[in-house]
């Protein structure tokens, strides 16, 4: 049962991920990205990580993607006409290098990070309390660094916008 749910969710996530880049229109791309986020959230449920599910839906599917859609609609880009560039060697080379790097990373994770399956989940795993405790103890430093990075990004956006519209 759990394997079936995981396989279904993984399939949906992969397919909609593919469809994100195959769409001609940015709004449809954003919609498939939302579906991919939702499928990922479903996988978190099968991992008993209910809090992470809620955050995934609330923050990614609910807030960040709304802003994506908002910006896409504000700019309202026209439907992209297909420009077939099969023989653009620079593109193919760049895509090939990136694909090999990504594949290498995936293989490395699969080989290194493989843990014997069937290990029982400790009680309280994935609960809000445990995630919070970890965030404020073991992962306090990365957590705070992330918030500073986000702050820098916001300030950067403000400065750029001010240079553009100010004065």
């Amino acid at each position, binding site marked *: 049962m759990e394997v079936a749910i995981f396989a279904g969710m993984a399939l949906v996530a992969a397919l909609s991920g593919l469809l994100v880049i195959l769409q001609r229109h940015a*709004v449809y791309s954003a*919609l498939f990205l*939302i579906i991919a986020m939702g499928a990922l959230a479903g996988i978190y449920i099968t991992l008993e990580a*209910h*809090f992470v*599910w*809620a*955050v995934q*839906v*609330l923050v990614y*599917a*609910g*807030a960040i993607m*709304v*802003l994506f*859609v*908002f910006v896409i*609609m*504000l700019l*309202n880009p026209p439907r992209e006409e297909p420009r077939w560039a099969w023989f653009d060697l620079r593109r193919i080379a760049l895509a090939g290098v990136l694909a090999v790097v990504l594949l290498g990373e995936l293989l490395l994770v699969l080989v290194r990070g493989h843990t014997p399956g069937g290990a029982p989940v400790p009680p309280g795993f994935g*609960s*809000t309390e445990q995630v919070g405790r970890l965030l404020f103890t073991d992962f306090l430093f990365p957590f705070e660094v992330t918030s500073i990075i986000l702050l820098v990004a916001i300030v950067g956006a403000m400065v750029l916008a001010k240079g553009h519209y100010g004065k």
Partner: protein
Amino acid sequence: MSAFDLIAMLVKIGVVFGALLLTVAYMTWLERKVIADLQVRIGPMRVGPFGLLQPIADGIKLFFKEDLMPGQVDRTLFLLAPALSIIPALIAFAVIPFGDTTTLFGLLPQPVPLRLTDVNVGVLYVFGITSLGVYGIVLAGWSSNNKYALLGGLRASAQMVSYELSMSLSVVGTLLLTGSLSLVEIVRAQTGIAWWLGVLPVPNWFAFSQPLGFAIFLACALAETNRAPFDLPEAETELVAGFHSEYSSMKFAMFFMAEYANMVTASAMATTLFLGGWLGPIGPSPVWFLGKVFLMLFVFIWVRATLPRFRYDQLMHFGWKVLLPLAFVNTIVTAVFAALGRH
């Protein structure tokens, strides 16, 4: 899961779904009646006693209206948008506890809890699901390929993202005092009597210990459901009918139902988080729950009849520069008191 549990669950789902849709239908009647009373009119009177059959007549009328599909729309999303709007509105209700336990006056062999399910992240579930409801509105605005509809959709997305922040923050105080994200635990934590300001005996509801949080939550609930005075996405004086300008027949009705279902959910959340949920001194608990929910729904209508619509810049100013800082202050003060109380 035993056969009894399964049947009980199916019956509960049927009852909750039916009651929700019936409430949605009769909210239109209630809204017209209450606003009529507040404006010294009498409202619908012709269809049935006190116009009580008016929602049924409206429903039949909407079903038989011509379903127009304008030529310039993006067909897929135009059809999908009403469904995307109403589905989150209906499934958000799944975790809201509407009563304690019941044996139906001793008819059932074992007590049945009066809620569909109790997940340990119930509050986040409701916020997460309702935050998805904005896509229906936004996509309706975009797919209509009409500038008024697009402006309505844009306003809806900016408004809902802005007010969602303050709404989530306004309940953090409640969560700090409860120590749980489960809606059942939050209601249980409000049992008993408290002394308000040390003198006045009041129910131990979070509306009394978290008045600021409650006020912020109410303001944000109005904005999240696109109700007056925050109904800018469908401001008829500027935008024809906003995001649903191009919709007719049942597709239009689905947006309408979604708005009312969201109102019911928001009222039920306000009841659960701040008004003690199903708790009451005597009598069956679902009656108390329903009474409080309808009190909140009345407030929604009352506000609509009282306040004029905000201007767009006022809306953004109010959300980001008034409500959000206040929600932060409420969170910090509550956290300090909770920490002091624990030691």
